[in-house]
Each structure stands twice: as C-alpha cells, then as structure tokens.
C-alpha cells in the first residue's frame, strides 16, 4: 500500500466471477507523508482513502469480468460507513461484490475488515468507459499482474 501514489491494494487473493466476488489484501504502511497531516501525532488512514481502497477492489473486479476491455470510474458512493479508525501497519482484507453488471455501468458493494473486525463498507457505482489510450490500458493491466490477478481474467 502506497498512499501517496494511490496504490491501495497489495495483492489480489481471489476472483470468482460466478459469485461476482474479488478478495484482496493490503497492509497500511508504517510511514507515509499522508500521516504528517492526517493527523500530526495521531496517524490515521483518511476515510476517503478507505473508500478509494474499496473502489479499486471493485474496479479490478469489474475489469476482470470484461478481461480489461473497459475502465470503470467511480461515480457514486452510497451508504458509506467508516466504522473504526485505521492506524499504520493495520492488515486489511478487502472484499468487492458485483451487485449488477449493467450496460456501461456497474453497481457494487464493498467492505474492508481487519482480523475479522469490520472497518468500513459502501455501495459503489461505476461508469465504464474506454481506456483513454492503449498505453494507459497496458499500465492498468500491468498493475493487475503485479497484484496477482489470475491470468484467465487478463487480456490474451
């Protein structure tokens, strides 16, 4: 997890397209410049970055369904609940669930737990659009490979 670069996911653990569920893991870093401001003397992961973490897991789930044919952009957050503070070095288990795979959009639910304890959850809406260019698409696919996305969900 590299907060400054919005690299919120360390590893994709599983992708099950039949049940529409992706599970991923991350560990909050011990040090980050984000913690210098949020907050001095009380380092906590900002809630918006927890939403971003859930969104990235959902995004990889959506892209895996189309073998990375299009890119999802977060357009809606509903029922967002940030249940507890998240400190440095906290291990995170992120679950993304496909609620509806629509035409040009997707509805998902996501949650994060740590050692079985609920941290946050939300319903996230995405609009799917073409990648801006092939180089951008390659960058996203390469990132998915780094995160251990199963090869059957990647472009040939």
């Amino acid at each position, binding site marked *: 997890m590299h907060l400054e670069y919005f690299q919120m996911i360390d590893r994709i653990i599983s992708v099950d397209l039949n049940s529409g569920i992706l599970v991923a893991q991350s560990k909050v870093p011990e040090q980050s410049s984000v913690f210098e401001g949020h907050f001095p003397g009380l380092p906590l992961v900002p809630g918006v970055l927890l939403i971003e973490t859930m969104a990235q897991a959902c995004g990889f789930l959506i892209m895996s369904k189309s073998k990375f044919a299009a890119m999802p952009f977060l*357009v*809606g957050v509903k029922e967002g609940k940030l249940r507890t503070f998240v400190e440095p070095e906290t291990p995170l288990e992120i679950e993304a669930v496909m609620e*509806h795979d*629509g*035409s*040009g*959009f997707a*509805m998902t639910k996501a949650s994060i737990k740590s050692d079985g304890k609920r941290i946050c959850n939300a319903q996230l*809406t995405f*609009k799917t659009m073409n990648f801006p260019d092939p180089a951008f698409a390659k960058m996203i696919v390469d990132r998915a490979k780094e995160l251990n996305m199963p090869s059957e969900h990647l472009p040939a």
Partner: protein
Amino acid sequence: MSTFDKVADIISETSEIPRGEITPDSHTIDDLGIDSLDFLDIVFAVDKEFGIKIPLEAWTQEVNDGKAATEEYFVMKNLCGKIDDLVADKA
C-alpha cells in the same frame, strides 16, 4: 401494473420526482430533469424489476452519433416500449 406505472414508480422513488408529474409524454431528461447519474440508478432498478439489461451504452452511442433522437429512447412511452421489447426478446 403496466410497464409505464412500474417505471414511473421507480423514477419517482429514485429521483424524488412527484409521481403525478410523470406522464407517458414526459422526456426523462428535458422534462423530468433526470441527470446521467440518477439515470444509472433508474436503469439498475428497471433491469432488476424486469430481469433485463437495458443497452444503455448502445442507446447513448446512437444519440451521440446522431443516429437517433433522444426522444426515441428517453420519452417515457418510448422507453417503456423498448422495455417491453426487451422483455419479449428474453421470453
């Protein structure tokens, strides 16, 4: 309950538009003021209600390319007709 009544109820609940303002001739965008984000919630609810997948991407593309007028897809009576067609195709 007719397709129109079901869709009008969904729009009213999703977008907080008074049910009485929604008529078969209402243009969902121009008359009812539904924006693209609210429309996703409506399509989601319609897809679930009717067990279909509205081809929103294709419709939008046709409108953007000038191959269809917005009225063809986004006036209530026409939208409901398209939904009926999709339900019939599924059967």
